[in-house]
């Protein structure tokens, strides 16, 4: 980055721009503690400068100035993903979007809200609740994730089963494109807003969004089903997901996950031995009563047992999934998009893999469409044990491979999941994504190094061989306190 660009950005943003090394260090990672020696061969995560724009005009000026010098611009708000989606791969400008926050306006007649893209979902929900409104869906990382960030990922989470993917709730997104132009993207613009969904900030930077919202639910109800095995759990989930009146949230946990929660006082001993399905509903009193009856019918139909006395507490803990780290201290795992009709078969294979490898695997997931769930299978590790930890990273690929046998593919690409691109997209889909990228960002300055192509070290063939070799090393050396 040239001195001229640095000067231009600092002149324009004043104290909201910094090249201070102390500060820049904090932006080199997201949630994933990948060791330096692995990162540094693949990416240059240290930004040259961090900027914190407060307006779309400032954002546009940053992008224009960076574009003149072909300097990458990486957007980041919550920084709450694990695939380097919001970490620089090629240095340059890191645009911290958190200052683009707050509710701009609410239209109660139209049930819409205009909100800054850097606003966290929890902040938005709180602001809406004060006005008698609520969001249609939110990520399970709602206290951390931003509105724009979730759209830039796939936007599936709590509420998606009932109300659909986030992109369908977006009426418009004010967006800065790679040439620095400002656009109000909608469903009908030449560049439709849907292109921004799951583009991970590689096509443009959203600064404000208009979202559909709903009146605050009158009532809520929480059920918890104890299923005798994974097959029974799948049956419960499939029928609940297909029902005409779908729950707001349908979440499942395997005994490994429940046992850990029990060890930390967040689930009962009974839950610790069970496959459970949380069934959370809200709406009018009639809707809630109907859903509660439906839950009882599902219990009968699938042979599950009512454990709803724990349901409300589990709901209250819905943002505490990282509790699972407490027996690590690190956590490794695979987050996958998976058909729910293959869930039991997947879990059976995972169980077999666990029997052989004794990793302490645990699995939970959110059912987000009538056919698909976001499934997370994890195991604890210790990042201080470098060898064991790197071997653990290789084992994550094995979990992905098991998932792939059942139609599973990584949820989110970023940098680290680029080896799996062919599992996530067909060649036609990928060609279309690349066409959009070339059209909107011919200089490749918007969050480069992500999504479209694996870098050399993550080339699928090399990556596959490397990971297999690393896994094989476990047969003779497993590092201290094996991952």
């Amino acid at each position, binding site marked *: 980055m040239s001195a001229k660009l640095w000067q231009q950005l600092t002149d324009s943003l004043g104290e*909201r721009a*910094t090249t201070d090394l*102390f*500060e820049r*260090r*904090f*932006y080199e*990672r*997201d*949630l994933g*503690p990948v060791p330096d020696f692995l990162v540094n061969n693949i990416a240059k995560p240290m930004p040259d400068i*961090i900027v*914190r724009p407060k307006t779309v005009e400032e954002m546009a000026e940053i992008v224009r100035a960076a574009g003149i010098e072909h300097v990458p611009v990486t957007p980041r708000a*919550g*920084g*709450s993903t694990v695939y380097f989606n919001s970490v620089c791969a090629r240095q340059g400008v890191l645009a*911290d979007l*958190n*200052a683009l926050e707050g509710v701009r306006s609410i239209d109660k007649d139209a049930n819409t809200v205009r909100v800054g893209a850097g606003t*966290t979902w*929890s*902040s938005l929900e*709180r602001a809406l609740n*004060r006005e008698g409104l609520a969001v249609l869906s939110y990520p399970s*990382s709602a*206290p*951390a994730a931003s509105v724009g960030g979730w759209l830039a990922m796939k936007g599936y989470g709590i509420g998606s089963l009932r109300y659909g993917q986030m992109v369908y709730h977006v009426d418009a997104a004010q967006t800065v494109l790679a040439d620095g132009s400002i656009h109000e993207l909608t469903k009908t613009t030449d560049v439709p807003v849907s292109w921004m969904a799951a583009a991970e900030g590689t096509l443009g930077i959203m600064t404000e969004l208009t979202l559909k919202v709903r009146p605050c639910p009158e009532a809520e109800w929480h059920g918890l089903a104890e299923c005798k095995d994974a097959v029974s759990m799948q049956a419960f989930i499939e029928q609940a997901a297909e029902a005409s009146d779908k729950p707001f949230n349908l979440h499942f946990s395997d005994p490994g996950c429940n046992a850990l929660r029990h060890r*930390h*006082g*967040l*689930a*009962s001993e009974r839950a610790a031995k069970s496959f459970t399905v949380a069934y959370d509903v809200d709406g009018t009193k009639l809707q809630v009563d109907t859903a509660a009856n439906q839950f009882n019918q599902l219990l009968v139909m699938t042979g599950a047992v009512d454990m709803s006395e*724990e349901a409300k*507490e589990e709901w*209250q*803990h819905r*943002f*505490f*999934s*990282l*509790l699972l*780290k*407490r027996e*690590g*201290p*690190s*956590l490794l795992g695979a987050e996958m998009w998976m058909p729910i009709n293959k869930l039991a078969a997947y879990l059976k294979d995972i169980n077999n893999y666990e029997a052989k490898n004794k990793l302490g695997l645990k699995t939970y997931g959110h059912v987000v469409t009538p056919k698909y769930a976001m499934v997370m299978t994890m195991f604890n590790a*210790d*990042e*201080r044990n470098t060898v064991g930890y790197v071997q653990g990273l290789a084992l994550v690929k094995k979990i992905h491979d098991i998932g792939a046998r059942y139609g599973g593919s990584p949820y989110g690409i970023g940098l680290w999941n680029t080896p799996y691109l062919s599992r996530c997209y067909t060649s036609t889909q990928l060609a279309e994504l690349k066409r959009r990228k070339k059209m909107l960002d011919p200089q490749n300055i918007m969050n480069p190094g992500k999504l479209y192509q694996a870098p050399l070290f993550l080339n699928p063939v090399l990556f596959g061989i490397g990971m297999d070799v690393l896994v094989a090393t476990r047969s003779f050396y497993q590092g201290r306190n094996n991952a």
Partner: protein
Amino acid sequence: MSSGSFYKTLTEESLICGRCGSCRYECPIYKELGWESSTPRGKISLTREIFAKGQKQLLTPEYAKRVTQCTMCGACTKNCASRIDIQAFWQDLRGEIAAAGMAPQGYKAIVDNLKAKKNITNFDNVTRLDWAEDMDEVPENLDQEPGAEVLYFVGCVSSFFPRAAQIPVAVVQLLQKAEVNFTTMGGDEWCCGFPLLAAGAASEIKEFARHNVDTVLEMGTKILITSCSSCYHTWSHVYPTVLGEDIGIKVMHVTEYLAELLNEGKLVPNELDETVTYHDPCDLGRNGGIFDAPRQIIKSIPGVTFVEMATNGMDSTCCGGGGNLQSADPALADAIAGKRIKEAAETGATIVLSACQQCEQMLEKAARSTKQRLQVMDVTELLWMAVED
């Protein structure tokens, strides 16, 4: 089952932190400064590198400054997805910063002063009851009356700062009105020790805890009330832990006790035509679990219109006065207070109430500096206004 926090050691918790950032969005420091280094996750992340991975070269003055830029309000702990007791983390971390000789001068002054004077000021501790001179008649039983039913632990701020002196005056008059048999520890009251926790000198608090508990037990009093939220938190949550025992004293915040007196009909408020809002002190509300009692008092006063602030209860925003922030970065503390008083003004209230002297000092100063037409007072002062003949 419990949804509580857990705590192992500074290094272990720094590794357990998932860096998810759930701690960010309600952090008053981050909301003011905006940089990732000011987020709880940022500070914890660097702590991991320094103390869990041995990169001592990263223990720099910039880092130490960020560690002290915290009000210890507990909003991060409330939201932590890994259930880390982040306040305990900050206490230990400040201990490490102090041990490395990188704590602000203000911390050392606090610790030295507390050791020498047993209170947070330079005043002699025997002058603790000077505030009572504001009363028309000083109650006979005020100073260490043995066998009193209730002991009123006044706290340093109310004892020594003139503005806050109106709070004990109100409390004492309310207790008299309700014919409660009460007393105080007079000059034998030592600071509860709470400032030591935030100054990286947690190990020093045991002496203060032992003295205060033993003095109260010797006086034969079984109920202790306090109008200071931090004193309340320290007595109820910290003392049993540091002493490793059930202290054998029922500790109540004064709002809890006054709410009981109202329920029993021992205090009967008259009508007041005021619109008020209430600021939950962090140590009383989020960290102490007391939300209802102050509101019950306010709502018991006929004619009072009560309006909640945008953030209230468990989600209440800090006033900026906690965590010894004033001694480390007073301008930052003032900026946080300025935001909170603006939030209070947006309710349309003319009076903002709290139940903590420190909060009131911060909010009153902020109201003055931002020229908000808001009167700041304690819940006990409002109740006394309503009860006074």
